[in-house]
């Protein structure tokens, strides 16, 4: 396998609502691929083939076809679990109908737990932590925050948002039955311009904490509206670090916005170097750590399988333990869900210890708590069909 070129199709939005995120991520993947091309366990060369799917499942299927035509055997995607579902379905069918031309799907950010539970597939490997895992970590953290009395849930009215709400309530009942859910809202995805009414509602409920899976402008507008109305609550979020949001959070949100993720802005060591290089090169933040997982996992598995054949590599990836930027991680065999540490970080001014300025705002996500992989690990109901 040495010296071979491995094409990885990156199927994600480059236009439309999620384009900013997509633009950042495509750079991340290309950048990390370059890093790995300098030397990796398998000695292969990676090439990222970006294809715009406009955040549309139907378009993604076209993109998949196009990628397969170009000889691509590894596909990665992450924005939108609906797209992920469509891809899993299509890849399952493709692999079944076209033996010898199998395709492996490496999911870098789609976090719907179903993807590794009821909808799990042998060909799908998830590198992000799913909603339930993040919620496990988040609630473990919240359990110890004694000032949390009343929590308000506000989420986007689609599967991701609904799941955040659901898993939160489940976990809370287990860990802090005394905390009250003061209210719950589901608002339409990316359509609300004016969050003032929601903020008024949160205010009226007397909540001291807001938990939200919102991303993009749905998160920034929420935080902005809260600041404007003088609503002094803490926000526990999934996606405060995604492109554009940090800029919009600015100074007003300092100390009040928490994020749960498999990374923080200040991981130190080699990661700090990577982030710095990325920033010099693109004047942008490298936050999609799963791009690192992807190439680390692939090269290790290819080395192990001594092949780039997706069937062999897939088999090699199952249960593979490898070293990534956030420590030693494991691709769990039962459901192909990566087991990795999770971090709670807070939005604050940069300081000596946390000196990475996110989006050049002078603010950063500073680690407040790190949890080992086992803490956030959740059971799976996956009944995987192996070929």
């Amino acid at each position: 396998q040495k010296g071979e070129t491995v094409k990885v199709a990156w199927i994600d939005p480059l236009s439309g609502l999620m384009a900013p995120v997509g633009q950042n991520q495509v750079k991340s993947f290309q950048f990390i691929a370059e890093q790995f091309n300098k030397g990796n366990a398998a000695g292969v060369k990676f090439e990222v083939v970006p294809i715009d799917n406009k955040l549309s499942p139907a378009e993604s299927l076209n993109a998949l076809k196009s990628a397969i035509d170009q000889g691509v055997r590894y596909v990665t995607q992450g924005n939108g679990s609906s797209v992920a579902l469509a891809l899993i379905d299509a890849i399952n069918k493709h692999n079944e109908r076209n033996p010898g031309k199998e395709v492996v799907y490496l999911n870098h950010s789609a976090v719907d737990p179903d993807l590794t539970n009821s909808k799990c597939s042998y060909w799908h490997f998830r590198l992000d932590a799913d909603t339930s895992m993040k919620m496990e970590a988040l609630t473990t953290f919240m359990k110890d925050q004694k000032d949390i009395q009343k929590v308000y849930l506000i989420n986007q009215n689609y599967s991701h948002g609904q799941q955040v709400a659901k898993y939160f309530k489940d976990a809370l009942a287990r860990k802090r039955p005394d905390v009250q859910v003061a209210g719950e809202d589901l608002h339409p995805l990316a359509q609300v311009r004016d969050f003032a009414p929601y903020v008024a509602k949160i205010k009226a409920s007397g909540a001291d904490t807001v938990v939200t899976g919102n991303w993009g402008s749905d998160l920034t507008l929420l935080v902005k509206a809260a600041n404007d109305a003088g609503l002094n609550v803490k926000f526990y979020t999934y996606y405060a670090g995604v492109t554009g949001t940090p800029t919009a959070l600015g100074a007003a949100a300092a100390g009040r916005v928490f994020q749960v993720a498999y990374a923080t802005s200040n991981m130190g060591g080699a990661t700090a170097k990577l982030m710095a290089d990325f920033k010099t090169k693109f004047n942008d933040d490298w936050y999609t750590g799963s791009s690192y997982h992807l190439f680390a996992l692939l090269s290790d598995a290819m080395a192990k399988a001594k092949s780039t054949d997706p069937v062999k590599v897939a088999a090699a990836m199952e249960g593979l333990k490898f070293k990534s930027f956030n420590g030693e991680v494991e691709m769990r065999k039962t459901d192909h869900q990566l087991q990795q540490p999770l971090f709670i970080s807070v939005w604050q001014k940069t300081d000596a210890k946390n000196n990475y300025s996110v989006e050049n705002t002078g603010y950063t996500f500073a680690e407040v708590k790190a949890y080992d992989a086992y803490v956030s690990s959740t059971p799976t109901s996956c009944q995987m069909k192996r070929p």
Partner: protein
Amino acid sequence: MDQILINLLNGFSSGLLLFMLSSGLTLIFSMMGVLNFAHASFYMLGAYVAYSLSNWLGFTAALVLAPLIVGGLGALFERTALRRAHKFGHVPELLITFGLSYVVLEVVQLIWGRTPVPAVPPAWLQSSAFTVVQSAQHGLSIVAGVAPPEMCQSAGEAAASCSRFPMTRAFMMLVSLGMLLALWLLLTRTRIGLVIQAALTHPEMAEALGHNVPRVLMLVFGSGCALAALAGVIGGVTFVTEPAMAAVVGSIIFVVVVVGGMGSLAGAFVGSIVIGLLQTLPLTVDASLADLFNRFGASVHEGSRGWPLLRITLAQAAPILPYLLLVLILIFRPKGLMGTREE
């Protein structure tokens, strides 16, 4: 009590913002008969231009200049493109604005990038206009600016609650009312309004009577775009300035214009307020139809017929209420609330 007040204030201000957005659209529609699908794009353009200008000249200058610049661009578009399509009728006119909205979006992204730009309101807009204080012993009171913390820091037995009303929103309301006044004067107190309406049906005749119709149309379109841009300047700093900001308001402003009555300024105003309230007030009601039925003795629960529909709370349905209203209004009163013509 304070919550009701705040909710009403939110509703009204949200309505006034909608008016700010849709007034230009109404102007263009009532006078030129053009459904301008690029209206929201001009709104976005206003925000971006103002962002660049205020980094350079300050916010106040941007507030004045950005609408002028965008209005000029609008006039240019009317002159070079829309005028050509006008000959072919309404559908091509509409489609050309459709095409323009794509182009504007792409150009904005090329110039300012795809991520939000950090547009912040100037210092004088960053404070609070007033604070609504509800305290157990003093009841409801309104304090200008930010209420001193001791007022809100629960004194004694019962906690007082303070809700601040941000300056940006107050300013927005003010500008919106100003727009209403200016437009009303333009339409009723000047003859230009008559000329435009005349030109709508018989442009040649209006010209033969000595009115420079093309110039008037250009001015109207330019003004409509300038109004959108003004809304954008304020909307941009109040919310976020980002490429998706046009898409978010894109269809709701049509709802406003249609519900109010196509081409009627008063209608656009009433429509804005109604939609503003409709988007806001139902959010506070977390009851669903199922709850309602259960209240009256029916037992509706998961698994009963129509549960998926009955289960939806009013708060969740709030965002679609404007569209529901639109459809109902058009079926039962196609003129719209205040409209005079039915087409």
